[in-house]
């Protein structure tokens, strides 16, 4: 259920610059402005799409939200609290509530951990449950992503499974603590088209069942339209358009959005 009036995540004037180190052969230190004064809100319970090309800064926003990077300027507020100030206990608490699904299913699972070990990792880290209850929680998570019967998968290893299965395990891992907010960073760009649809359906299902808020990062406007309630378009580190998904597609106001729509392959049939 969406609560359109309740803002769960707020970005206020976020800026981030990446500096490359000066070296003998590359001349002066170069600065790359990844994000320039980006602000937007995400409402509780919605699936929010962030669409842009590579280098647009969309992945950086995702990483800032899960605190894999820190912004150079601006504030990030989760439920009204400034997350840039979180340390120790508050940080650990934050990590229970905000999770991430990574782009590359072939690299986002530790090859030496079994499925059970990978999915139960967040439970162990946060000291949730005992060995019996953890098994149940992992079972529930695996069921929710369609890996049934879950016990069959417990002791398998990533290299024994397909890309689609691995990504579902990564999703199960992200959801096992029932987080409030999940960043899905291009979760299907390394998977085939038909498997991608399956993953989208799983995400939509999870959203309904657990009322979790998703930030869906993608380069495909069509995928965002399929899955998301609202979409923001980002170009060269700046937000150029934001609004309900259908509106953006039918009445794009920014020329970049129009270019994206025009470039999308269309079936003439």
């Amino acid at each position, binding site marked *: 259920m969406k609560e359109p009036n309740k803002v769960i995540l707020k970005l206020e004037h976020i800026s981030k610059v990446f500096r490359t180190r000066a070296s003998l052969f590359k001349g002066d230190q170069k600065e790359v402005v990844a994000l320039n004064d980006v602000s937007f809100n995400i409402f509780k319970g919605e699936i929010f799409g962030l669409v842009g090309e590579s280098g647009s800064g969309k992945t950086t926003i995702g990483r800032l939200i*899960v*605190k*894999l990077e820190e912004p150079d300027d601006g504030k990030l507020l989760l439920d009204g609290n400034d997350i840039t100030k979180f340390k120790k206990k508050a940080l*650990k608490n934050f*990590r*229970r509530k*905000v*999770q*991430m699904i*990574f*782009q*590359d299913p072939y*690299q*986002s*699972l*530790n*090859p*030496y*951990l079994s499925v059970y070990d990978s999915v139960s*990792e*967040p439970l162990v*880290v*946060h000291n949730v449950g005992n060995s019996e209850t953890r098994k149940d929680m992992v079972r529930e998570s695996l069921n929710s992503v369609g890996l049934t019967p879950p016990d069959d998968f417990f002791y398998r*290893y990533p290299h024994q499974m397909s890309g689609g299965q691995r990504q579902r395990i*990564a999703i199960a*891992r992200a959801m096992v603590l029932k987080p409030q907010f999940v960043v899905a960073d291009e979760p299907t760009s390394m998977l085939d088209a038909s498997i991608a649809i399956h993953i989208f359906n799983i995400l939509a299902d999870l959203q309904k069942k657990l009322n979790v808020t998703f930030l869906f990062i993608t380069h495909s406007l069509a995928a965002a339209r399929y899955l998301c309630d609202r979409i923001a378009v980002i170009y060269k580190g700046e937000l150029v358009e934001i609004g309900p998904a259908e509106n953006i597609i039918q009445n794009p106001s920014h020329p970049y959005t129009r270019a994206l729509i025009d470039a999308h392959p269309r079936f003439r049939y």
Partner: protein
Amino acid sequence: MVERFLEGWSVYKENLIGKIGLILLVIFALMALCSFFPPMIDPMYHPMTGVDPLISHSTSPSWRHWLGTDFIGRDIFCQLLAGARIAFMVGISAAFMSILLGTAIGMIAGYSGKIVDTLLMRLADMIMVMPTLLVVLILSSLFGQLNIWTIVLLIALFRWPGVSRVIRAQTLSLKERPFIEAAKVAGASHFRIIFRHIMPNVLPLSLLYMTFRVTSAIIIEAALAFLGFGDPSTVSWGMMLQWVWKTGHMFQAPYWLLPPGICISLLTLSFYMLGRAMEEVLDPRLRKEVAQE
């Protein structure tokens, strides 16, 4: 994990060098195990104290003494077996300790970066340039005869830098991988990330380097013993060589001179072959099988 081991084994099996190395190792391991039996059969077969009541000088091989006797009538074959035991012990413990140290330091340096990394690596550099053998020789000339375990410890303390560099490099590349970031996002502490996530990924490399460390440990111990700085109460192959030399039997008793020398060479060679074959198992790129689509 068993499946992984079996898969690795099937690749290993096809490597000729690996097979030869493994066979040699098994032979030496058997030798080491058998070293306990001769003294039980007859006290005269004890490598250190066993003296044949009938012989009190060096003799060539006979039925009584398969490889002959040394200058005071002790059985050379039993000494050889005991030497195998010592070689394994020294080699493996020294290697194990240096790998333990090197892996831990390498992981911490690679993961922490910045100051910690710089300090640890400079320390590694300083130790690496010191000639191990020389330092141990100096120490033993200062402190007198060294106990075998002290020697093992010293070897470990001087040989960890090599492996730490490799582990550090591996850690640096692993650090950026998505599954490590996923662990961070899940809230894992640095300690947990290093020992639960990074360690299993570098351990195969550590084990590989351990095989190479064993070779250097065995050779260092043998050299020390040969030069007279070993533990006089242990019979090692190097010690046997020292006795041959010191008692002037170098050219008179090939049955005494050759066996320990050959054993040192073959054992170190077999560990080295093991390491080479393991490399092929660990690095899929080196394998002869080409991956398909």
